[in-house]
């Protein structure tokens, strides 16, 4: 398992858990469909910021938020 910022960009990823993230932002991500077991795909990574595909939507995250999203590769 690794934070999104260190995940393999080309791998199929599964969301596992949140790290240290404030309730408001955790709630926002949950509402957007980021629940454990959900597949996500990294679209782009630049300077630590990440854009990802989640439930058919493109979500942009800053470096800090992306670092608090723990994922695993699908085949793990």
């Amino acid at each position, binding site marked *: 398992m690794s934070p999104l910022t260190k995940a393999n960009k080309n791998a199929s990823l599964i969301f596992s858990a949140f790290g240290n993230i404030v309730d408001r932002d955790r709630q926002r991500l949950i509402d957007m*469909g980021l629940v454990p077991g959900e597949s996500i795909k990294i679209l782009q990574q630049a300077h630590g*910021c990440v854009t990802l595909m989640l439930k058919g939507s493109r979500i942009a995250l800053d470096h800090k938020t992306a670092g608090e999203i723990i994922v695993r590769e699908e085949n793990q």
Partner: protein
Amino acid sequence: MKHDYKEINICLAGNPNSGKSSLFNNLTGLRQHVGNYPGVTVEKKEGSLISGKYKINIVDLPGIYSLSATSEDEIVARNFIIEEKPDLIVDVIDVSNFERNLYLYTQLSELGIPVILVMNMADVLKNKGMEIDVELLKKEYGIIAVATVASKNKGTDDVIAAVIDSYEKKYPVKNFKTDYGQLISCEIEKIESIIFKDLLLVNKYSARYLAAGLLKDDKFVFDKIQKSPVFGELEKQVLQSRNIITDKYEDSIDAVFADRSYAWIHSVSAVVLKTTSQSKYDISDSIDKIVLNRILALPIFALVMYTIFKFTFTLSEPVVRWFESVMEFLSRQASGIIPEGLIHSFVIDGLIGGLGGVLGFFPLILFMFFAIAFFEDTGYMARAVFIMDRFMRKFGLHGKSFASMIIATNGCAVPGLMAARTIESEKDRLITLMVTPFMICGAKLPIFALFIGAFFSAKDGANIMFIMYVLSVVLALTAAWILKKTILKGQPAYFIMELPPYRMPSLKGILLKMWERGFMYLKKAGTVILLMTVVIWAGLTFPKANTDENMSEETAAGIQVEQSYIGKLGNFIEPVIKPIGFDGKAGIALITGLAAKEVVVSTLGTVYSLGEVDPEDTSSLSERLQKDPDWNQLKAVTFLIFCLIYLPCVVAVAVFFRETGSKMKWLVFLAFWTTAAAWIISLIVYQGGKLLGLGG
């Protein structure tokens, strides 16, 4: 003729970018208006339509992802739905993103208010090679659903028909419940059974919504039951139920609820969504590969900003000139009709002069709003905010703060301040509001043009102008950094933002957005500026000075200004501004500049005995300033720096007051902080310059 319509009150809810506003525009046409929700700065878009014997009143709510609202606009949307209880909720979803959008429906449908599901963007779904079985959705799940393509005005009549039929209860009513699984459903029922003991509560709110909210520790729901006689019993049960759920699922309750809701949504999606053909290529990802590229992102962003400014300032010029000529024509006509005297002066200098100033600026604002609306509707603006977030974060600002600052630069601080509404964190929003007035808005440009033209060569002038732009940005960022380290301490909020797919914007949508924003500007700015212009006119006109009939008009005007209330005020503040190199004349201009920054130039024109001066035509005033031994290059630069930093114009101050929740302490702080910063920095520049032998 009086009509007895049956009134149906509905609201449009839905995720951001689901096409709610397009549907609202299709439903209401021009029968819409924008106001404000009481006590907050969030815009309230309302409209109506007549269909047969029905009058449908529609409120377009801000976009929300769920009823667990976080930002100010989301709270407003949630409160409206829960407290105002419309007859019907129209939940507009982007059907091409069916699962994510249906999440809100699972919550809305438990409120005890009929919900119509409008599946918008059916064309986009088709391009993805998919189709939705609307009839199956109705039959299997009892969901009242309508398919639309709001961007092409398709399906609007079906929405109206569904609203009327639903209101008249022509659909079989099914008590819709999201399937959270046996365990959670059982715990919800236990809590519901206690809530049902309080009839007053049940009459007001849906018991299921309250029960789910209590389990999710929703503060808004807890506030609703605080005074209930069953509060103690409820609290005990909720605690027990929570323990049972977390023991079973080993996760936070809200995550469990979301997980169960999405599991149900996924099962619905598997039944009603059908793959019909090969998915068409989605261009958004390819565009993003270029637009968000680590090397190309900033140059592309700079090019877009340049395009917006070029479009605004170049294309608006003929319209601005036309407006000016209309105002001149009005002025001439009024001059011919009204005899010389106080009323003449009031109408020509006060009313037409003031109104002309506002209208002269209005086309430029409309052009800028058009350009910004275009890039917003294409989906690029969301990317621009994301691109700038990393840079802004270094100074304690949020990516969304950038939008405010860029709108204020060369444009106007008023829409810049209003753009800060989308920032969720109150501290980040406050900092943005505090620093946005430092940008060089369009109204400050004539002052810069006047002084740079008067005291510097063309080559040096360009450098000074560039330095001023750099200084405004440095000041804003430094001020943000100081505020973040002192009174508004804290880390900038996380950046989480949905990037909409790229779309071809519709002209109608852009024009409506432009007009909506422009009209608000016109209404607010027009009234305040007009009032202030009249106040300044009175301040410069009274008390009447004793002037000789043999005096030239210009000399008499100069004496009148000197002896007027504002003139006396200028002399009064002279001791304060003397250390920064200014005299009473400059003081008068700075005071009147509080009404609108362009007024600094016209006031100096009057003070320098030139009578009325066109802010655009500053050549003659320029020569006077040059010849005045009281002015030199150092004083000119100091004056520009002071004008750059000191308290923004009265319209911007009024908007700032509103946007900070009408809290006097922030208004006082703004006044003190900008003026003190202006005075201290000007003092350093002026006295430092003198020590270095500059400005001799």
